[in-house]
């Protein structure tokens, strides 16, 4: 589903603009889904469970952020570690068994229709969620003071610090945003698939980075936009679906996507260099 990977990508892209990575999204997402299903299994109200899950997502993000900024280590390493850590813990707790959502939640509840519902029988409500998250982050990044801090932190961290911006706080906040979005998507996916599986969201981390990069986000931080990130995710997803429809052998699709990523980024870099007159 485009909206699901899309929502995660919006957060990951914004984090990349302030020059950090999050590889742990593919583990945080199923972990939050697991927390959700465990809570409603124990009879908790779904809305209340959602709030707890969002807080849990924020805490996962906070942990990534604090280790990165307080330990002075690259977030690539931090989140590689937490990715393996949370995945391992999750596999042990669940013994990799899937849970059936329908055992705890009857179909047709209001809660469910907020997250997975086809308006008029064909238009998935998840798209609206994607648009809402895109608008919120877009306004935050491009029209809010915080966005200026994000670009400054990614573009020239020393300058940002010298100008009195708390770059650590900016980075941790971006990590928290990613965590919260992962938890939201974890709940959405569980509802849509009517099952919890510990493999939910696998591969999201690299796809999200790839989509951000295709959408013009610079790996070193400081460059990127929400519109670009959205175009990036649409490009990757349409390409993938298109290739399937064109009957490209499924196992070969990653080869095409890999090539496409390289070509897009080459084009991006070329245009950027032209623009700067170098």
């Amino acid at each position, binding site marked *: 589903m485009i909206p699901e990977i899309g929502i995660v990508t919006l957060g990951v892209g914004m984090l990349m603009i302030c020059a950090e990575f999050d590889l742990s999204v593919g583990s945080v997402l199923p972990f939050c889904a697991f927390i959700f299903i465990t809570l409603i299994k124990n009879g908790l109200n779904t809305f209340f469970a959602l709030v707890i899950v969002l807080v849990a997502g924020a805490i996962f993000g906070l942990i990534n952020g604090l280790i990165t900024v307080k330990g002075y280590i690259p977030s690539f390493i931090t989140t590689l570690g937490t990715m393996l850590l949370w995945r391992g813990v999750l596999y042990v707790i669940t013994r990799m068994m899937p849970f059936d959502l329908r055992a705890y939640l009857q179909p047709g509840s209001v809660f469910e229709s907020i997250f997975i519902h086809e308006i008029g029988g064909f238009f998935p409500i998840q798209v609206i969620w994607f648009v809402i998250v895109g608008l919120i982050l877009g306004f935050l990044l491009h029209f809010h*003071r915080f966005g200026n801090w994000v670009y400054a932190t990614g573009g020239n961290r020393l300058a940002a610090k010298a100008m009195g911006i708390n770059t650590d706080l900016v980075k941790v906040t971006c990590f928290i945003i990613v965590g919260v979005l992962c938890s939201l998507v974890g709940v959405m996916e569980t509802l849509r698939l009517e099952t919890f599986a510990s493999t939910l969201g696998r591969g999201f981390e690299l796809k999200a980075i790839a989509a951000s990069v295709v959408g013009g986000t610079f790996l070193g931080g400081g460059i990127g936009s929400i519109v670009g990130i959205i175009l990036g995710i649409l490009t990757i997803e349409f390409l993938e679906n298109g290739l399937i429809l064109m009957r490209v052998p499924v196992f070969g699709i990653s080869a095409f996507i890999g090539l496409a990523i390289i070509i897009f980024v080459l084009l991006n870099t070329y245009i950027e260099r032209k623009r700067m*007159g170098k």
Partner: protein
Amino acid sequence: MVTHNSEKNSHKKSLVKMINMHKWFGKVHALRGVDFEVDHSEIVGLVGDNGAGKSTLIKVLSGFHPADEGEIYFEGKKVTVTSPRQARKLGIETVYQEQALAPEMSIARNIFMGREPVRSLGFLNKKAMGDESMEALESIELHLRSPDTLIAMLSGGERQGVAIARALHFKAKLVILDEPTIALSIKEAQQVLEFIKQLKKEGIAAIFITHNLYHSFPVAERFVILNRGERVADVRKEDVSIEKLSELIVTPPSKVDS
């Protein structure tokens, strides 16, 4: 020691006065009791060879490395400067050699970095940012087309101009210029020197740190020379020549004293 002004209560009228500053980095005694002062709207050239303590002295003043010993008076009041933010509150702005600008952001966004004018809920007031940026640039005679131009598109001299305009806009009383011309072409360096002269016209004091005496000599009114963490001379421009300054820079402190 060559000195021009040593009345006991001179810190009353000077803008900033640092007395007996000491700074150690581990076992390295980087500042050995330096006295330093700047008057209102005075441009002081702070010169010295590598490792003389110039950067350390201004980093103490701009709050990056608080001093281990010594007193700082700003506008006659005793202050302790422990962070860059606090220094800026006093009215001390620093323009660094490694430019304190984000190249992929617009001029306006750079000028207001960390101090953005906002409407309700923290949303940027882009119109004010644009207008005030252009005003600040005009005030140092830097004429650029649009406040939305990316810093990456500007020349080195123009970039330093943006950094100086930023200091000016935020009502700095003292601007510290740390090697602002070091990476620039001759023409760009000339442009930066013009900006510095504009600062004086606006009534702002400046400390100009450089290796290149040919850059600081035309604009500075007084020179303070450091050597191995000590002040070896404090001279008015009228009383000195570039040759004499060069000589003072390389003479060890003991020789100057005797």
